[in-house]
């Protein structure tokens, strides 16, 4: 882009510390501020260049503010709204009591945003904060603007912080490799640096090698590309496994409640999906309350929503069990019909109460964004969901195996008559078991609200998969559910790249159907005469 050339000259000057005459600075800055007020994207971009060029003391601050939409401009003056909320006159840099009237925030589009990034890249290279320097280096690496080379090299010269130095070298390499007039040896070295970096961006930069390159360079480039691609291919497999695990964990969360109501109690609960939905809506309500009353707690909203969701879904579950299902024991297929009716009612109830449109459930800071682990891109929300699923699973296992309630549950489900003969109040246990299953579904709802629609149809989209998981894993066995969910998740994700999302899923369903032929009672089936009866 042409303005980057001007930017380049400007920075050369800047670096060489040749101070331009005060008057000209004043001129250009006035011009720049006028353009900022003009409310036209091209003018705004131009203004950014001029500010940078003018080496105005506040340039960095102004451009940064512009980037976050904190820059207010009007015909007379331009004001920076500080992150703290105060106001600073952009020209003089002195604080103002309040923003003068008639100021409008300067609008951005993607072009302007890119200009801002590039400018910050240039300006940030000399920023005292190493983190900022690294960010700036990244920006330069992306923009690959030859004009910044001198600045980068200057920065490298005085850089002490190793990571920052690495980032700067990579930025330098990105520029060098695309520069016909650079030393062949430097360019070869650049290829090496990029190879070291070895990610998608490095690949992109290497591919962008201009046609002038010497055979030697071409060869090096080809080698580097091949090597990087090989490495990335390996990582891609790992990545797919990771995706599979995270999908599996979602399935596990959706299905594990069912593994209790359906697996342990033998109740085909078609309203299970709606329990998940209730959990998600509880999260929504909790967040609304927090937004309204205690915004500071927002990052804790999910933690607060968890018990709430468990209680809400669990209570509804108990109500359903006491109100309907207990009259239907021994007739699982009738429970299917009744619960189907209940699911219709719950859906429509939520639709009437919250409206049919999606509701926004925000993501707390710790659940947004991603980080790189080698060639592996891991998003925080998926990571946390996996962890969460594991915790829920462990907790359930503990409840069933270690607590007296769990003991009674297993007793009742294995031999109802005997249990009641031993003085266990089976009715109470049934209600609690069903409540537990539903409550867990509610917990799943909290997690799913982070990755899916929060709408009355939320539950519907998971119910079938949940049944597949439980049946595949083997009814009445939590471990089966775990293995089932993970197998299906991973298989699905390994198939997807080749078969595509739809065919992959179809193939999986067919596999399940065939699998059930081989093992009519799922992966972890109970054996012996007990089952026959």
């Amino acid at each position, binding site marked *: 882009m042409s303005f980057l050339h001007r930017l380049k000259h400007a920075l050369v000057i800047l670096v060489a510390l040749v101070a331009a005459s005060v008057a000209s600075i004043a001129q250009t800055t006035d011009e720049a501020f006028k353009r900022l007020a003009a409310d036209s994207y091209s003018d705004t971009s131009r203004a950014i260049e001029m500010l940078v060029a003018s080496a105005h003391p506040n340039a960095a601050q102004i451009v940064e503010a512009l980037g976050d939409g904190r820059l207010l401009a009007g015909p007379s003056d331009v004001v920076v709204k500080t992150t703290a909320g105060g106001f600073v006159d952009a020209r003089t840099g002195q604080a103002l009591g309040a923003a003068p009237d008639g100021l409008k925030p300067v609008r951005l*589009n993607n072009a302007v945003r890119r200009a801002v990034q590039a400018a910050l890249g240039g300006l940030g290279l000399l920023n005292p904060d190493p983190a900022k320097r690294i960010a700036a280096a990244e920006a330069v690496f992306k923009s690959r603007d030859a004009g910044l080379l001198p600045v980068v090299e200057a920065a490298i010269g005085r850089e002490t912080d190793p990571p920052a130095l690495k980032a700067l070298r990579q930025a330098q390499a990105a520029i060098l490799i695309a520069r016909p007039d650079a030393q062949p040896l430097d360019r070869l070295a650049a290829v090496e640096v990029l190879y070291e970096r070895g990610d*998608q961006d490095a690949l992109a930069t290497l591919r962008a090698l201009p046609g002038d390159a010497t055979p030697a360079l071409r060869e090096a480039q080809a080698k580097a590309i091949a090597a990087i691609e090989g490495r990335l291919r390996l990582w891609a497999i790992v990545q797919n496994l990771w995706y599979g695990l995270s999908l599996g964990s979602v399935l596990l969360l959706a299905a594990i409640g069912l593994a209790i109501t359906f697996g342990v109690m033998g109740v085909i609960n078609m309203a299970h999906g709606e329990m998940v939905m209730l959990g998600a809506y509880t999260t929504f309500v909790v967040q609304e309350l927090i937004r309204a009353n205690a915004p500071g707690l927002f990052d804790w909203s999910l933690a607060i929503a968890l018990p709430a969701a468990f209680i809400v879904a669990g209570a509804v579950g108990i109500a359903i069990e006491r109100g309907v299902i207990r009259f239907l024991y021994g007739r699982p297929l009738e429970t299917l019909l009744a619960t189907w009716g209940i699911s219709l009612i719950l859906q429509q109830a939520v639709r009437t109460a919250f409206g*049919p449109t999606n509701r926004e459930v925000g993501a707390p800071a710790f659940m947004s964004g*991603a980080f790189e682990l080698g060639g592996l891109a891991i998003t925080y*929300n998926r990571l946390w969901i996996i962890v969460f699923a594991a915790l829920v699973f462990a907790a359930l296992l503990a409840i069933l195996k270690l607590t007296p309630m769990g003991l009674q549950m297993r007793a009742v489900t294995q031999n109802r008559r005997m249990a009641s003969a031993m003085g266990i109040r089976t009715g109470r246990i049934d209600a609690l078991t069903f409540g537990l299953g539903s409550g867990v579904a509610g917990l799943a709802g909290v997690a799913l609200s982070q*990755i*899916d629609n929060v709408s009355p149809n939320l539950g519907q989209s998971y119910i079938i998969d949940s049944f597949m998981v439980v049946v595949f894993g083997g009814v009445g066995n939590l471990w089966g559910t775990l293995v089932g969910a993970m197998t299906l998740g991973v298989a*699905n994700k390994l198939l997807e790249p080749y078969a595509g999302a739809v065919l992959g899923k179809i193939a999986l369903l067919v596999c399940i159907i065939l699998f059930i032929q081989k093992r009519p009672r799922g992966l972890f089936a109970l054996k012996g005469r007990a089952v026959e009866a």
Partner: protein
Amino acid sequence: MNSNRREFLGTALAGATFLGASRLPAAAQQETIKVGILHSLSGTMAISETTLKDVMLMLIEEQNKKGGLLGKKLEAVVVDPASNWPLFAEKARELITKDKVAATFGCWTSVSRKSVLPVFKELNNILFYPVQYEGEESERNVFYTGAAPNQQAIPAVDYLAKEEKVERWVLAGTDYVYPRTTNKILEAYLKSKGVKPEDILINYTPFGHSDWQTIVSDIKKFGSAGKKTAVVSTINGDANVPFYKELGNQGIKATDIPVVAFSVGEEELAGIDTKPLVGHLAAWNYFQSIKTPENEAFIKQWQAFTKNPKRVTNDPMEAHVVGFNMWVKAVEKVKSTDPDKVIDALPGIEAPNLTGGISKMLPNHHITKPVFIGEIKDDGQFDVVWKTDGLVPGDAWSKELDGSKDLVGDWVEKKCGNFNVKTGKCGAA
């Protein structure tokens, strides 16, 4: 012996439902003009369609405040086709034959329109269809107030190519007819603009697809070939929320790979935290954020009607507003609600849209619309970054597809929806 009582019960019940089913809400007073509202209030489509039902109720209420139509009050007849396509046909038949509606406003998905089409043809009534769709249709009984592909898709692509210097394209869509057709059109259009096949990636996903990890990372990969890349999304409403959430989480910023969507409006964004999405684009013929007196009045009226000061407006709602006003004008013009008269009167009728222009009903039963490109803002609204100078007339038949490039719809001179300019005959054959 004991069986005849049994029989009696059975028949009685059967008979009862027969009667019940055959005499449904009998028409009230004669002096009202009935208007059918055929939008799903339950099932998967309720998400989008319920709003349109409310908007129609509001418009009809307003019209009645203004003294109704032809001296009569308007009466809304609401039915729930429950996102079930055969039920759409059944309900359409019911509206026309039992409730004797003068016109019907409804449908969202193409399949629902396709399902009611034969009914409207057979019983010769009027349907106003408010949603952007794949085109390739021009029926005498249907008026398409939503965007045709040339009123949404193509301008958007032009914008990306010009303003964002995009050279590499991902066409991602839900696997149904609208995205399929739109992508076919775009593919043809891009190639005609000299884009190489290897620079176009087309990807389809099922309805309500919720696990976007793989696809988003594929897009990331595709975007790292050293050329500026953009995603043109025809992903259907429900699947968008998880899609955008995944985009945000995998850190794809609008400045790296902008996404322009054709099915994401204010309503859809209301379900997402838009901060990570700032700068992604959408192409529509209306945005709530557009500052015109008409629009501000409409928004105020809408939020008052729904008693919800945060309630958003969106493009299909505007389509209904325009369509309704056109219908009212046509009826007033011919002093009758007789479908034939109204159908003939509608082409040429003009009605102000909410963005300061005057939309006009064309002989092919599509309307002229402005096209806006908006960037998502962090408050869930759109910031218009580009607009067409004038209004764009909707093409029923796409110029980019071999099958349809010779076809035109013209219900004024040719009395034909698919007139073939090559053969000069109606019906293409």
